[in-house]
């Protein structure tokens, strides 16, 4: 997601399905390297996109773009990232963790074949 985003400025225009998020209906704020990267809007169907604002139930703060890509690709377990201090949650931590686990099942920001940011 935001991995390709910040440098290329097009992450916010990417949207699609994240099957692991189906059943959730919420907004989650994402911070990357101490900067607001956007608000992730998740719909019941698992459709996700970035919006400018929304009433977020949880905040996920990731220390770097590299960490975020590793999380999205499923290379870095969310619990490990949390214990190492690479990611922090605020608000509804259960929801935040559910979102990170869910995104590891696939998201529009990662190419399924290559594992590269979209």
């Amino acid at each position, binding site marked *: 997601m935001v991995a390709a985003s910040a440098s290329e400025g097009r992450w916010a225009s990417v949207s699609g399905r994240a099957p692991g998020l189906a059943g959730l209906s919420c907004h989650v704020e994402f911070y990357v390297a101490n900067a607001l990267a956007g608000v992730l809007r998740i719909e019941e169907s698992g459709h996700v996109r970035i919006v400018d604002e929304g009433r977020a139930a949880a905040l996920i703060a990731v220390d770097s773009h590299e960490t975020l890509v590793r999380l999205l690709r*499923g290379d870095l377990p969310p619990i*490990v990232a949390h214990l*190492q201090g690479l990611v922090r949650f605020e608000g509804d931590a*259960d929801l935040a963790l559910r979102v990170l*686990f869910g995104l590891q099942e696939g998201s529009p920001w990662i190419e399924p074949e290559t594992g590269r940011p979209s």
Partner: protein
Amino acid sequence: MISDTISILDGNKFVVSNREGDIEATPTDNHGLFLNDTRFLSRWVLTVNGMRPKLLSVDDTAYFAAQHFLALATGTVYVDSHLTVVRRRFVNGGFHEELVVANHDQEPIELDVRIEADADFADLFEVKDKLNKKGELYRRAEADGTLTLGYRRDRYCRETQVVSSKPAQVGDGGLSFHIRLEPQAEWTTSLDVRAVTDPGQTNIDDRNRLKEASLLETDDETARAMTGDLRAWIKDAPRLSCSWESLEHTYRRSLIDLAALRFRSGIFPGALPAAGLPWFMTVFGRDSLLTSFQALPFAPELAATTLNSLSLLQARRDDPFRDAEPGKIPHELRFGEMTAFEETPHSPYYGTADATPLFLILLEEYERWTGDRKLVRRLERNARAAVDWIDRYGDRDGDGYIEYQTRSSNGLGNQCWKDSGDSIAYADGRIASLPRATCELQGYAYDAKRRMARLAREVWDDPTWAKELDSQAAHLKRRFNQDFWMPERRAFALGLDGEKRQIDSLTSNIGHLLWSGIADKDKAEHCARRLMGDALFSGWGVRTMAVGEGSYNPIGYHVGTVWPHDNSFIAWGLRRYGFREEAAQLSFAMLEAAELFHNRLPEAFAGYARSTTKYPVEYPTACSPQAWATGAPLLLLRALLGLETDGRHLFVDPALPEQIAQLTLLDISGPWGRIDAFGRARAAVDAPSAAG
């Protein structure tokens, strides 16, 4: 036996000290302040004028607090000691200790009071396996008088902060106070030891704590709040009265220990049962699920949190290091340094073949006892993934049975509840080959599918899937009763080995087949006889392995000891098949053992025959309190009273032994509101009676 340590706890926060209140971690003494699988304090030693006060007595009646009464004396002589010390301690985000020094002499006295403090920040696995640290330890005296002990490895940082309410001289070794006490005067200071998991940042867990703290201005109020919480917990549970007073004590002890073992983490909503003190104060899939099942009629909220939390951690990916496959429910989650750096696979680890069907079993049981269909609907996707895991991954070779073999370099050899290395053995004592399909796993899979069929029909509105699941369960039952039955031994085999041969030893596992309902009725009758025969039944309970088997050892962890939780499920299984007298006999024997363990059943005890010993013999390293041992009396009570529900009504069908003249359980909550259950012994075990 009087323990030489005192443990106070609140979920995964606990303090282990000696009876004087000192913490002195050594390779053989696992003392410390522990939080999130990390030891935040490894040394905390009180001296007065260079001497250690000696113990008068210790009071640890609250699970989260203890008081140590001490006196300064020379050698072992207490006579004419004029100086007493009281240490009052309770667990919070670390611990709070009130230190009171009193001079009972006619003369004033000058004293040097000193607290030595140190922290090794050992991961619990490092404590167990005596491993060395890889990061850097540091300590500093802050300008405000706080002593900070710290540890850093890359971005992983943990600190312990020690603060005194009275000014102290803070040095490398700890805190010192020079005081003068007038005759009959007292000196008091409050010491706060705070475990900080994310120094420099306020993480969500701390924020929640701060919110709580803002309402609780003093430590006294914090202690009062914990006491109030415990009181409310006990008040919400059904009330028990019994002609046998010991059972009332055991029941109360169980409720208190369950409260103590409630595990809270910033990442889970609510509290779920941690497995056991000291090594297993964390989320264990199997333990939390079975304990929540045992406690359902008494504390249903545990099941809700367990189901929610485990659904969050349900595996989404294939990951050999963690023994994970999609849909699998985790075995164990840890929060220490070795987990953080993936030196162990516990983030979480999925090496359990039974947690996934047990998750489904608890989900259905929970729905019937609470009527909470909202949660069941929300977890439909997780339930479907779990069923899919049973068929696709649990059954590794397509033979229709769940079998296990680790794929991890750091994985468990046995992934059933008897998870020690020598537990799955043939009757001649040889260890069975891998992969292993133990019998109870098939029972759980059968039960899980039948229960999911009901939910599919009644809640998820999917009659086609329901029919399919019922058909699969019936097919599994037919095959199981052929493939696992040993006609010559008149019992089910412990399992099938890697070559699909029967693992032919006689074990307690057959009792779980009664709980699951997979055993054919005629075979169940043989099993009941075997379970209550001399080879398996010790007089106190059913042994994990029968006397006479090649591996039998009365103090072997899973090959001869008696496990209370195992027995509670066996008793419930006996009831399920109509063996009322056997269930009553077994339940009563186990509750008698509880009385002799001061009303707290340990994780396990030795398998010596009751005819040879008046007291059940302790197993040396048993965890206590341990969650499913704590839950055992609750399920035994359910077996004695025959409590069952169809989701609308509560059925009460008591079967009491003659030693229990009367047993009453008041205010059992459920979709029916609140109902009371009464039972009384007759000459023989009671005939069925209506609900109260």
